[in-house]
């Protein structure tokens, strides 16, 4: 697995498509209303939104995330970093922020490579630099 993260609009998807020579057809676009595990495409885009969908549906997060990691061993996982703001008032968003943080920590441990995007510029945090 390769984890690519960064703040919103930092060029994460463009970087992945360009680097791996993939197209938008190779991307599983997560939404905050679809809780099906994204596991059929080389790129999982915005895994954080899938986690929000799970939370909204009251699903067992740990079980789903375990399945996600089993299904996506070879995937490029793209996630928004939502960890650096004020604690949200909405309890679901509060939980979401924490679950995404835990997910990213786990994903980072399991990944061969971890890349952070900043203003369109990649920094490799784990893997061959």
């Amino acid at each position, binding site marked *: 697995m390769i984890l690519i993260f*960064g*703040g*919103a*609009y*930092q*060029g994460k998807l463009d970087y992945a498509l360009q680097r791996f020579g993939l197209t938008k057809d190779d991307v599983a676009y997560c939404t905050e209303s679809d809780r099906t595990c994204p596991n059929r495409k080389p790129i999982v885009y915005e895994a954080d939104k899938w986690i929000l969908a799970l939370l909204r549906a009251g699903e067992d997060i740990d079980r789903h995330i375990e399945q996600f990691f089993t299904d996506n061993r070879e995937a490029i996982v793209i996630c*928004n*970093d*939502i*960890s*650096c*703001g*004020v604690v*949200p008032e909405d309890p679901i*968003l*509060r939980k*979401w*922020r924490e679950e*995404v943080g835990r997910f990213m920590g786990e994903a980072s441990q399991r990944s061969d490579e971890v890349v952070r995007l*900043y*203003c*369109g*510029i990649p*920094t490799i945090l784990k893997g061959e630099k």
Partner: protein
Amino acid sequence: MQIFISGGCKNGKSTLAQDLAVGQPGKLYYIATMNPADDEDAQRIVRHRKERAGMNFITIEQPVNIEEILEKCHIDGSFLLDSLTALLANEMFSPSGDFDENACERVGAGLEKVLDQIPNIVIVSDYIYSDAIQYDPLTETYRKSLAALDALTAARCDVVLEASYTQITAHKGSVSHEIY
């Protein structure tokens, strides 16, 4: 040298930017972009002016139409443009309450002209992309537009820095001298 700096609020961006601008040759220009909306802004401006006092900056007020600095200044000077955040806000949200979703393209075109002609400039922006708040569509358009301006500027600059509580990460290029 063209330098782009971003980072969170109160992380030391402006101080770093001032020091880097002062280190470049020629007349020193401070491009002030804020359109003071209230007392808090007015106080912020007073504080920033105090910080710059004695640094020989010539202050140019340019809250909109950034390319106009090319006519007002010697382009071979050293410029500090603080910030993209305010420039975009001024062009996108008018005092009358109007919203212009195409402001990003206009500011981007102005910035390209500035970067084409001014070789020594430090440009400051704000990193507002890593929280878990869900915003209304207008704010989201603003965030997306600012990120596009950041990326455009970062791609063109020689050096891209991130300020983290007075620590600096160079994402592109480097600066040699000790700042803090």
